[in-house]
């Protein structure tokens, strides 16, 4: 059928597959369109955060989206496993804990009474951060505890870090690189094997259009390969797409620097997600580990 496929993503470098494909669609050379067969249209939707994308899935206004595992898991749990399915991986790594260079911060215990900024409550980095602190023996609640985890928008993090009003930031590329370059931040934790972006489908879409979803997942895997093999071209497309979406230009060398820390892979990050689930429980966002049997579904 001629049904349009509605796909969401963020204007983030960790959503490289979507950025590249979106830009190709823009140029009329759509990657997915070519591979899903004639007459298929892809509508791209840009979100700035996980909860919005998940809300869009709930409200049935999109079918698929690139998103962090944090919001995806959260949505899965909150809907008792009814609404979302994880159909592929997209990117690992790219996130890091950056600390003030002049502070002696080495282990979780050093963070007692400190302020750590994360991009968003309950997002992937936020949960990693809370879990890491909790594992280190600190007590963390939604609003405070032994250390204060401050969900703060990325641009604000940079200026707060520059003003030394936060002691550390757990965030995602390109902000990790910017914190390093523009604020002299020191990287303390850099987890390359942690999933950063996954491809998620609404359960209903998967049930109704399994064939389309399958083709999409395949095309996604091919695209991932292409990106890994052609980093320069991919980075150009990404830069163009980011400019189109955010009206601000990202320096090519910043993209290149960020690129080094990210691993693009279509492999389903099952282990990472499962340990992530444990972390969510530790961080207190989820009361008990839910049954993950329905979450992973290869179309």
């Amino acid at each position, binding site marked *: 059928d001629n049904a349009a496929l509605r796909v969401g993503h963020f204007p983030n470098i960790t959503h490289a597959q979507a950025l590249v494909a979106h830009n190709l669609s823009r140029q009329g050379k759509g990657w997915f369109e070519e591979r899903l067969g004639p007459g298929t249209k892809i509508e791209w939707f840009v979100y700035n955060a996980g*909860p919005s994308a998940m809300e869009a899935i709930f409200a049935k206004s999109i079918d698929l989206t690139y998103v962090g595992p944090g919001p995806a898991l959260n*949505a899965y749990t909150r*809907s008792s496993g009814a609404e979302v399915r994880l159909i592929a991986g997209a990117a690992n790594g790219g996130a890091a804990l950056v600390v003030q260079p002049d502070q002696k911060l080495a282990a979780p215990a050093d963070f007692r009474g400190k302020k750590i900024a994360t991009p968003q*409550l309950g*997002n992937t980095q936020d949960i990693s951060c809370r879990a890491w602190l909790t594992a280190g023996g600190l007590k963390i609640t939604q609003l405070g505890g032994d250390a204060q985890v401050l969900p703060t928008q990325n641009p604000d993090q940079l200026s*707060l870090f520059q003003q030394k009003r936060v002691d550390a930031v757990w965030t995602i590329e390109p902000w990790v690189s910017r914190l390093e370059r523009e604020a002299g931040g020191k990287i303390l934790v850099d987890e390359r094997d942690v999933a950063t972006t996954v491809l998620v489908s609404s359960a209903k879409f998967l049930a109704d259009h399994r064939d389309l979803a399958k083709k999409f997942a395949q095309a996604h895997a091919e695209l991932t390969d292409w990106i890994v093999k052609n980093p320069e071209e991919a980075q150009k497309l990404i830069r163009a797409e980011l400019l189109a979406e955010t009206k601000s230009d990202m320096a090519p060398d910043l993209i290149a620097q960020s690129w080094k820390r990210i691993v693009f892979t279509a492999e389903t990050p099952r282990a990472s997600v499962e340990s992530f689930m444990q972390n969510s429980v530790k961080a207190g966002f989820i009361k008990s580990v839910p049954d993950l049997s329905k979450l992973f579904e290869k179309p």
Partner: protein
Amino acid sequence: MRRASLATLFFVILVAIWHFIVRAGIWSPVLLPSPQSVGEYLVGAVRDGTLLEATGVTVRRLLFGYLIGIAIGLPLGLFTSASKFAEDTIGVMALGLQTLPSVCWIPLALLWFGQTESAMLFVVIMGTVWSVVIATDTGVRNIPPIFARAARTMGSRGLHKWTKVILPASLPFLVSGMKQGWAFAWRSLMAAEIYVTILTGFGLGHLLHYGRELQAMDQVIGVMLVIITIGLLTDKILFSPIERFLHNRWGTGLR
């Protein structure tokens, strides 16, 4: 008594309907949490102190900003009512700025003050001050001139006239202006808290925002109930006594 119990019954039935709709599973639990889960959230959040702390932060911000707003707005309003020039300048400005939703000050406040308490205060003050200016001005202008004449013949002038005649005579207007100022301040603080993180403390708006981020509807609805309760309570604690006094004295509004 019968009326009260009928009304109570109505709300009980409302909650029961809510319960059964959730049980029937017509909507996904992401869209509508059960009354139980909302209750559990509230109990939990009261237990671990989150709710109390957030309420404290919010109420403190609100009260401070509001009081400063009144302290600025009242004299400004008296000034605009007393001078034609002030009316044409400050009065016109107040009129314009009052139509500006005070959320719109948030971006400026953040740039000027950063993510600090001052930014929050600034937004709350901007929500209060213009309403108070306009209410004071209108209040003074609406004083029956006979009061001023009577006071003058008895020798009241200057400060005595302002404090013993003009201010009390315009009280009914002042109070309604202050109520409106409170409503606007309350609204803008909630908007500000939902919109930005402040390093020095999380308020109810933040809890609401986080509820959304976590897609935790029980938290969202629980916090909304708390906000409604606070709204009703402040009305009861702050304004009802003043209004009762006024109605009593002026003999108005007695049903």
